[in-house]
């Protein structure tokens, strides 16, 4: 579906060093899967998506989409994919049905075909009763579903979604996820960017973690968690005391104490297999362990009892922290 090798995007900046948004990314997206680009704001996700959508030319590297060279066949590729931009890009002055009409014409579709597909797609988007309403009367969640439905007007085999649920309330997010699952079940390949870990875990078969314009690691959510984390995470909150000092004392119980805070390179990280470790966050300690309850019992035993403690499953958020040394939420 998509094959990218050494993708670079540099933007010239006025009177300075050119800005490198994407710095050598390799991607392989297979037919029918949901593929995620995960990373913080400014990591290069959207720029990568724009290049895949053939609206931005790579500065260097090769990019093939649906077996076509993106540098040569941009228009043909755009004709066969669906794009859901971050800000919807709907025309808010037109009605829902008119947005389909306009968009369908961009793909060379006739009025009758557009009308027939619009009915079907509005049902899919659960907006069947909104066809004649102006877009600016719809809620954020409805608009996003509309944008996804509109992107399906050309019956694409590949749909690109740039942060599909950013800015939506939890209920709207779940409705949207469910719709995306349906698309996937029908055989549509999905590529999405997100900075939500739960979204990536929910939706993506495979994903790449991007930071600073580069792929830091790739795999299934489970693989990434297993590679970089323990099975469980014990979150420890203390009312008083220096967290760094407490971390050192908690760490004393680990077989192999490791430095935290700095971000070791993925290679080094894998080599060291630093799975059991303690991370210091501004408000709490994260104790990575395969058995959270046992670790907590041990901590109590060593008279390091926290104010509150929570044992949870490791998530992609923990992977990201392990890979980059920072949390995503900042």
């Amino acid at each position, binding site marked *: 579906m998509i094959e990218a090798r050494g993708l670079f995007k540099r933007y010239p900046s006025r009177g300075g060093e050119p800005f490198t948004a994407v710095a050598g990314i390799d991607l392989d997206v297979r037919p029918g899967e949901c593929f995620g680009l995960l990373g913080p704001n400014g990591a290069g996700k959207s720029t990568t998506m724009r290049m895949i*959508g053939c609206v*931005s030319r790579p500065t260097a590297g090769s990019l093939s989409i649906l077996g076509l060279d993106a540098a040569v066949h941009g228009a043909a590729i755009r*004709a066969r994919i669906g794009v859901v931009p971050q800000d919807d*890009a709907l025309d808010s002055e037109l009605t829902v049905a008119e947005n389909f009409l306009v968009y369908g014409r961009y793909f*060379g579709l006739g009025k009758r075909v557009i009308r027939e597909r619009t009915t079907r797609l509005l049902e899919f988007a659960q907006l069947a009763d909104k066809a004649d309403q102006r877009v600016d009367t719809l809620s954020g969640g409805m608009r996003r579903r509309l944008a996804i439905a509109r992107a399906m007007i050309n*019956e694409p085999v590949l749909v690109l979604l740039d942060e599909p649920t950013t800015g939506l309330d939890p209920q709207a997010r779940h409705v949207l996820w469910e719709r995306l699952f349906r698309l996937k079940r029908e055989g*549509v390949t999905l590529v999405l960017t997100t900075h939500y870990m739960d979204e990536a875990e929910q939706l993506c078969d495979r994903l790449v973690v991007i930071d600073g314009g580069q792929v830091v690691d790739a795999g299934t959510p489970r693989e990434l968690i297993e590679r970089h984390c323990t099975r469980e995470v014990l979150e420890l909150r203390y009312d008083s005391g220096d967290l760094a000092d407490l971390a050192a004392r908690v760490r004393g119980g680990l077989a192999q104490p490791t430095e935290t805070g700095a971000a070791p390179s993925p290679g080094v990280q894998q080599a060291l297999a630093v799975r059991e470790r303690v991370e210091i966050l501004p408000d709490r300690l994260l104790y990575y362990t395969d058995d959270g309850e046992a670790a907590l019992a041990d901590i109590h035993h060593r008279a390091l009892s926290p104010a509150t403690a929570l044992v949870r499953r490791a998530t992609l958020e923990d992977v990201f922290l392990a890979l980059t040394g920072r949390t995503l939420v900042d």
Partner: protein
Amino acid sequence: MTTLAAPAAPVPATADTSVPPRPALAELSYRMLLYRRTWRRTLIMSFVNPLLFFAGIGIGLGRLVDHSGGDPLPGVSYLAYLAPGLLAATAMQTGALESGFTAYQSLRMRPTYRAPAASPLSPADVLDGHLLFNGFRILTSCLAFFAVTAAAGLARSPWALLAPFAALLTGLAFAAPFFAGGVLATRQGTVQGMFRFIIMPLYLFSGTYAPVSRFPEPVRILAYALPLWHGVQLCRGLTFGTLSAPAAAEHVGYLLAVTAAGYAFARHAYAARLHD
């Protein structure tokens, strides 16, 4: 439950989806659809305002001019003199405003260029469609203005029927480069500046209200160098049937050259801004 895929195919078919045969028309039809929603808003700027200028200055100031013996054209009332000048100026106004501002808006404020940019259309197709729409806007506002002045008996020659088309050409000579300026501008102030420092002075010093020969030489040279004066000369010459063939060729040639250069510039700007 309905499915999104074509009934027979497990994977959605793409066979009937391709680049439209006349892609610019897809953008034109979008602009026309939107215009059906918004045309009332544009009446003031492109029709009522020129008529107000025409009536206010033409009748009010015209009385002073006509009685002072300062006839700009022998045997022609000031109102009749002003009508073709304002026709060309209206074309410029609509051409520049409709392109400079809507291009800026379509790229940055209400990003309506985003949808066609992600479709099989090329940036040039988007420009062509929008330019066609602006041609329609320029021509219709000029025809409306011309109809009023002709009804007032101010068209003195059968050639006058060509004046709205001369005005269209004038408008396009502004529209093309202003499309480029609109998508290249990164702040709204830049677009406003283009109107304040280019369109307004041209409005006043290109022979719209008074013959250019009355102005000091530097102003005159500048007026000759810029498109509006040529448009005014064309419209006025046609309205009174006084245009010579060589003069017509010169003005039309000049306006075509400016339009072509502006269009080439706009193609370049659209390619850079819609697809980076």
